[in-house]
């Protein structure tokens, strides 16, 4: 089925491309921020609250427990959320254009 001219025009329009990139970039940056706050915040926590971070939790120090164990599941949650949202975003974008 060849695309109708209007649909083709939509796809190749400046507006479509910028909205596409803006929406994707907003999602990516949001997820990256959630990750960076934790990754870059941990050294700061170690720096400014050394006693809190050295608290013992089941043998671990708090900061060791966060970095050596809890960080991994946290990143899985972020990436799982991102994949779900970005697949939905793509499906929406495709539907918007193809329904024209």
């Amino acid at each position: 089925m060849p695309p109708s001219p209007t649909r083709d025009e939509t796809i190749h329009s400046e507006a479509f491309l910028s909205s596409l990139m803006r929406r994707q970039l907003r999602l990516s940056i949001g997820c990256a921020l959630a990750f960076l706050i934790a990754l870059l915040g941990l050294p700061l926590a170690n720096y400014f609250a050394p006693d809190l971070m050295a608290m013992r939790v089941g043998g671990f120090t708090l900061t060791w427990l966060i970095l050596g164990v809890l960080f991994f599941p946290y990143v899985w949650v972020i990436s799982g959320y991102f994949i779900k949202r970005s697949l939905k975003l793509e499906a929406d974008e495709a539907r918007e254009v193809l329904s024209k």
Partner: protein
Amino acid sequence: MSTVLAFFGGVDPWIFAFSFITVAITIWMGFRSAKTSKTASDFFVAGRSVSVGWNASAISGEYLSAASFMGIAGMVMAVGYDALWYPVCYACGYLFLLLFIAGPLRRFGAYTIPDFAEGRYDSPVFRKIAVVFVLFIGLFYTLPQMKGAGTTLAYIFPGLPYWVGVAVVGAVITLNVALGGMKGITLVQAMQYWMKMFAISVPVFVLMAVFGGYGKNLGYNDGRTLAEAMNPVALTQSPEVVREPLPAKAPKDDVWIAPFGPLTTKAAKAAGLSAEESKPLSLVYTYSLIIALVCGTAGLPHILVRFYTNPDGVAAKRTTMWVMILIGVFYVFPPVMGVIGRNLLPELYAAAGAKGTDKIVLELPRIINERYGVWGSIMSGIACAGAFAAFMSTFSGLLVSMTGALAHDVYGRMLRPHSTPEQRMRMFKFSAIALGIVSVLLGAQVEKLQIAFMVGQAFAIAAASYFPLLFMSVWWRGMTMKGAAAGMLGGGVAALVCTTVINLSDLDLVNLKEFWIAHPILRILSEQPAIWSVPFAIITMIIVSKATSKDVPKDIRMKMLVLHAPEQLGLKNEYIQEHQAGAGH
């Protein structure tokens, strides 16, 4: 062969058996896959038909190198908390790939990164620059794998010369790549991931069952004196751990378990700064290390090339998710080895590198022998098999990506653009053998260098060259070829120069000791350049691109659409039709 037999007397039969089985399975799978790898597409991108599960296992298998399998445990044991940034950032660098690079790159559709570089900027010159970088970073990352192979084989067969291990691993993998190409290697690496997972987790679980859990072992590092620690009352009700005394060379408990320990304060300590004065410097060091590891992961060419083996962009994203889970689970284990090793095998602190803490993964399981007879040797044998799987899978990935660059980009695109698929396939096999020989010859020369350092250098260069290139090319329309090349070369060369200066001064070839003592911050910024070299590369890209903005490709909107529009719209075929000469394979 007679040399091998001569050393057989001192070899633990279990360790030999497990290592031998690993190598034998790898060779067998190589021959088996040779029958199914028929076309050029099979060789370069595994026919673009690798399923999510296989591909995720294969990427993970390729990624978990000698540095991950042996180096992290050794580093955690040697320097404590600060070394934990390595496994975390290795795993999390993948998140950056997923968020910013994986999907668009896959939608664009190309065999190799140089294909992307040329397609994005319509510039054959840029392809050449990108090829040089693939080969350069690839060889840099190959050398530590080779060194790991040489030292491990010398450990299993005491007295065997270093170069034999390099030659054996090099020959096995070169054979595999030449026989099966990318498709064959994918299956082998997937299998090797599960082998490594098994080889690290089983000994760790057994050790924890016998000597107490992760937290419990860590709990003993609280600065208690030996007399207190030996007192069963001061311990717990079940004194499984009898902590061995720490030798003088080992870092003390409080420094070891806390952040800003021996790794990040080294330069400040050398300059004689007080603990308070050195803390801001080690914060800078920590941040720079994090940036290098995260951006470097997202910019390693042999990892990126894997995204092209997925059937589509959706599969590429699912694959990344699984890779993060697979490597994340793996990376929890090596630090456990380091922690238990500190309590039970502190005598390893006496020697450095491969003779010291670096071999903790192989040595530690053996102490089970004291309680349960032969089981310790079996566990150690399993760990050795994992180490073999580690060198082999990472080297095979590197060899495939370097061979792809040589056979596809140099031969197929530059020298003989009209060659037939059969000719290219023959060239692939020929390039694999040539690069295998070069890698073995180079690998035999690096016995003196440190594994962790060489890996760090490769990461620093990738972080400041490929990562900015990919990130900016995907998200910024205004980028021109000149801007991209200037930023990539500028960042990469800056990182290379800094780390080389550090290397030369550490090997005492250049005497900079006085200078580093006078300027500890400069030492940190040269040892870990990412904190300034990554922004430097990006800013160079922006400035040069603005200055040459008339060179932005004319069909940039179409290129961006192909990169970002959902695949359901079928824009890629449209693009390929418009660019018959540029994108057809």
